[in-house]
C-alpha cells in the first residue's frame, strides 16, 4: 500500500484547498479514505491503524484543509461515529457516516435526563413499538448542539419490566420530527451551551435502531467510553490548555504577582505538566498496542486541575476579577475559552467535574475496574426498573 503521506499529497494535488467548498471537499476526503484512516474502506477510512490518524490530520492542517462546521465534530466525530461504526448495519453506516463527517448533518446526544444523571441506566424515556416504528416520549437534558442537530443518538426504555440495564434500546433520532422540542438550558455562565429536549410522540423507524432491542446499555457504553477518551486523552504541547492562559497573564503583567499566588501557580504548572505527560503516555501506550487504564484518571485530574487554575486566575486579576464580561443569554457553537474573561472560565470549568461522568463516578470506576476493590452494596440489582424507588 502506498504510504499515507503520499496518499495525502496526491489527494491535495487533486483537490486544492484554496477556495474549496468545505462540504464537497470533505466529502471527497471521506471517499478517498482519508477522513478516519482506521475506519474501513468505503466508510471514510483505509483500514489503517488508529495511530496513523494524527499524522494525516496534521498534514491536512498544514495544507490549510477546509474544516467542517464547528458544531459537527463535538458529538458526531467523537461519539456517534465510532458507535455507528461498531453497531450499525451496513445501510446505517452508508447512510449516516459521510454527512456526519462533512458536517452537513450535526449530531447530538440524547442520554441524560432530569432523573437520570450519574445513574444513567435508570432513565425513563419510553420507546413503544408500533409496527415498523417506535413511539418515543420523555425528556432529555444537557444536550450539546441540540439546537443545530439533524440527528440525535438516543437511549430509551423499551421494557420497564426488566432490571434497569436490560430494558434499554439505542436509536438514531431525527431531530426534525414534529414531536421534538429543543429549548435552551441556561447555565451558570449566563449562556445556553446546552439544551433540554422534550420528546412527545416522536416516531423513530425501527430501521434507525442501533444494536438489538434490549442491548441499548451495551451500545451506550461504547459511546460513553469514547466520550471520556475524547475529553481526557488528546496530545498536547507544554502549556497547552488553561495553564498557558494563566502563565501568559503572569508573564505579561508583573504588577499582579504576589508570593502566595506564585507558589500556587508553580504547583499547578507542575500538575499541568504531569497531566500532559500522563496523557502522552496513554497515547504512546495505545500506539504500541498497550492501552492503559489512565484515561479515567486523566479526566478526573483534568477537572480538578482546570478548576484550580481558573480559581487562581480570577484572584490573579485582582480588581478586574470582580467584573464579568457578559451575562447575555447566547447559544455558542464553539468552546473558545482562552479568549473569554477569567470569571467565565471559572464558572464554566465547574462543569468539568460533572459533565461526561462526575468525578465521583470516575473514582468509582477506578476503584471497581482498576483497583478491583470490593463493590459497594447496591439496592437496584435484579429489580424490575418499574419497581425501583424514584
Amino acid at each position, binding site marked *: 500500500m502506498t504510504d499515507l503521506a503520499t496518499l495525502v499529497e496526491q489527494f491535495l494535488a487533486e483537490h486544492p484547498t484554496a477556495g474549496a467548498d468545505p462540504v464537497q471537499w470533505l466529502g471527497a476526503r471521506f471517499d478517498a479514505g482519508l477522513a478516519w484512516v482506521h475506519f474501513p474502506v468505503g466508510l471514510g477510512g483505509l483500514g489503517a491503524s488508529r495511530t496513523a490518524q494524527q499524522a494525516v490530520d496534521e498534514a491536512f492542517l498544514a495544507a490549510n484543509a477546509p474544516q467542517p462546521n464547528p458544531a459537527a465534530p463535538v458529538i458526531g466525530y467523537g461519539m456517534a461515529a465510532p458507535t455507528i461504526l461498531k453497531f450499525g448495519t451496513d445501510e446505517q453506516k452508508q447512510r449516516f457516516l459521510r454527512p456526519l463527517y462533512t458536517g452537513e448533518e450535526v449530531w447530538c446526544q440524547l442520554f441524560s435526563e432530569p432523573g437520570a444523571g450519574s445513574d444513567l441506566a435508570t432513565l425513563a424515556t419510553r420507546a413503544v413499538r408500533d409496527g415498523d416504528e417506535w413511539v418515543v416520549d420523555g425528556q432529555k437534558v444537557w444536550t450539546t448542539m441540540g439546537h443545530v442537530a439533524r440527528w440525535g443518538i438516543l437511549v430509551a426504555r423499551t421494557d420497564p419490566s426488566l432490571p434497569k440495564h436490560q430494558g434499554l434500546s439505542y436509536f438514531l433520532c431525527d431531530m426534525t420530527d414534529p414531536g421534538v422540542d429543543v429549548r435552551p438550558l441556561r447555565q451558570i455562565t449566563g449562556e445556553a451551551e446546552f439544551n433540554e429536549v422534550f420528546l412527545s410522540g416522536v416516531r423513530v423507524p425501527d430501521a434507525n435502531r442501533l444494536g438489538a432491542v434490549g442491548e441499548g446499555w451495551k451500545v451506550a457504553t461504547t459511546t460513553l467510553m469514547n466520550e471520556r477518551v475524547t475529553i481526557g486523552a488528546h496530545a498536547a504541547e507544554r502549556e497547552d490548555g488553561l495553564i498557558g492562559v494563566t502563565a501568559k497573564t503572569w508573564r505579561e503583567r508583573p504588577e499582579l504577582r504576589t508570593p502566595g499566588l506564585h507558589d500556587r501557580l*508553580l504547583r499547578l504548572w*507542575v500538575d499541568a*505538566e504531569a497531566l500532559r*505527560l500522563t496523557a502522552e503516555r496513554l497515547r*504512546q501506550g495505545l500506539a504500541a498496542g498497550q492501552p492503559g487504564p489512565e484515561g479515567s*484518571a486523566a479526566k478526573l485530574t483534568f477537572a480538578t486541575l482546570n478548576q484550580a487554575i481558573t480559581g487562581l486566575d480570577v484572584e490573579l486579576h485582582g480588581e478586574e476579577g470582580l467584573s464579568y464580561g457578559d451575562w447575555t443569554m447566547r447559544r455558542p457553537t464553539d468552546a473558545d475559552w482562552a479568549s473569554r474573561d477569567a470569571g467565565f472560565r471559572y464558572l464554566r470549568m465547574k462543569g468539568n467535574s460533572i459533565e461526561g461522568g462526575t468525578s465521583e463516578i*470516575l473514582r*468509582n470506576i477506578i*476503584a471497581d475496574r482498576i483497583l478491583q*476493590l470490593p463493590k459497594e452494596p447496591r439496592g437496584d440489582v435484579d429489580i424490575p426498573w418499574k419497581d425501583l424507588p424514584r
Partner: protein
Amino acid sequence: MSDLLYGEVENDLRASVRDLLTDRSPWTSVLTRVETDKPYDLELWRTLAAEMGLAGLLVPEDLGGAGASAREVAVVLEELGRAVTPTPFLGSAVLATSALLAAGDTETVAELAAGQRIGALAVPLTTAPQAAFPSLVRVEDGKLTGRVGSVVDLEVADVVVVPAIGADGPELHVVQTASAGVTVTPITALDLTRRIAVLELNGAESRKLSGDAAAALRTALTTGAGLLAAEQLGVAQWCLDTTAEYVSTRHQFGRPIGSFQALRHRLADLWASVSSAVAVSRAAADALATGSDVDIAVAVAASFCSELAVRAAEEALQLHGGIGMTWEHPVHLYLGRAKSSELALGTPEKHRDALATLVNLPA
C-alpha cells in the same frame, strides 16, 4: 517527545530485580536488620552490584560498566523503593558514579562499576542541584579539611567524592575513607532503611579530579534528583498496592472496608496520582538518558514524585488504621523513606523555584 513507556529489556530487568528482592529482602528481614549493627545488606548488594552488574549501569562498557542509561537505573530504583531495601545504590551507583563520570574519572568509577568498592558523594543529602557549590571542605597545603553532615550511604563507603574549595575555586577530590584524617560518624536517621553519616576531614590525603568541578557536581545532583523520583514512585506504588489489598480483606461493620466509598475514593485519587507519577518519572529518566530537556523534566519529577510518595505513605498508614501505627507493620519503613526523601536532593519547593526560572514564571 520522550519515550514514556517501559521497553522489553526494562521489563525484564524489573522482573529479575523484583524476584531477587522478594527472595532476599522481604520487609520482615528489612525490619529486623535495621536494628542490628549491620543495617545494610552488603551480601545482597554484592549480588545486585557485582553479579547482576547493576552498579555499573550508568558506566560505559570501556570502563567496565553496562553502558546502559538512566532509564534502566530508574527501573532498578523503582524496585529498590518498592522493597525499601537498605543498599548503597543511590550513594554509590548514582551519586558518586555520576560525579566521577562527569569529572572524567576512569579509575575509581571502574571499581564502583564492578561492585568491588562502594562510593559516596560528600554533600548534605538535602543539597539541591541548583545550590551553590558547597564550601564545607577546604584544600589546605594539598590536603582536605572540613565537615560534611548527612552524607548518604557514607558509613559503608570505601571511597568518597568530596567537593572542596581550593585556591582557584571549586574542586572535586577522591578520598579513601580508611585513610588517616578521615572520620565517619553515623547519624540516627528518621529513615530506618537509608543511612546518613557525618564526614570529618582533618588534613586528609586525596586525589584531585580534573574537569569542571561545579558542572560535574551539578550533573550528579541533577541525575540523583531525577532518579530519586523513580525510587519515590516505587515507594508510592507499594503503598497503593498494599493498601488496596488490605482494605479488600479487612472487615468492619460486616463488610470489607474497601467497599466504603470514603476509602474507595481516596484510593482512586491516589491511583490517579501514581499513574501520573509513572509518566513524569519516565520523562525525567528519558531526559537524563537523552540529555534533552533535562532540567525541566527533573524539576517536575522531583517536585511531583516527592510529594506523591509522602501522600501515598500517609494514606497507607491512615487506611491501615491501628495496625499501621505498629512497629511490626512495614508501613512506617515507607513513611520514613518517603518523608526523608522529600528533603533529599532538593525539596519540592526548591525544585519549583528552579522551574520558575527555567520556564520563565518569575516571582
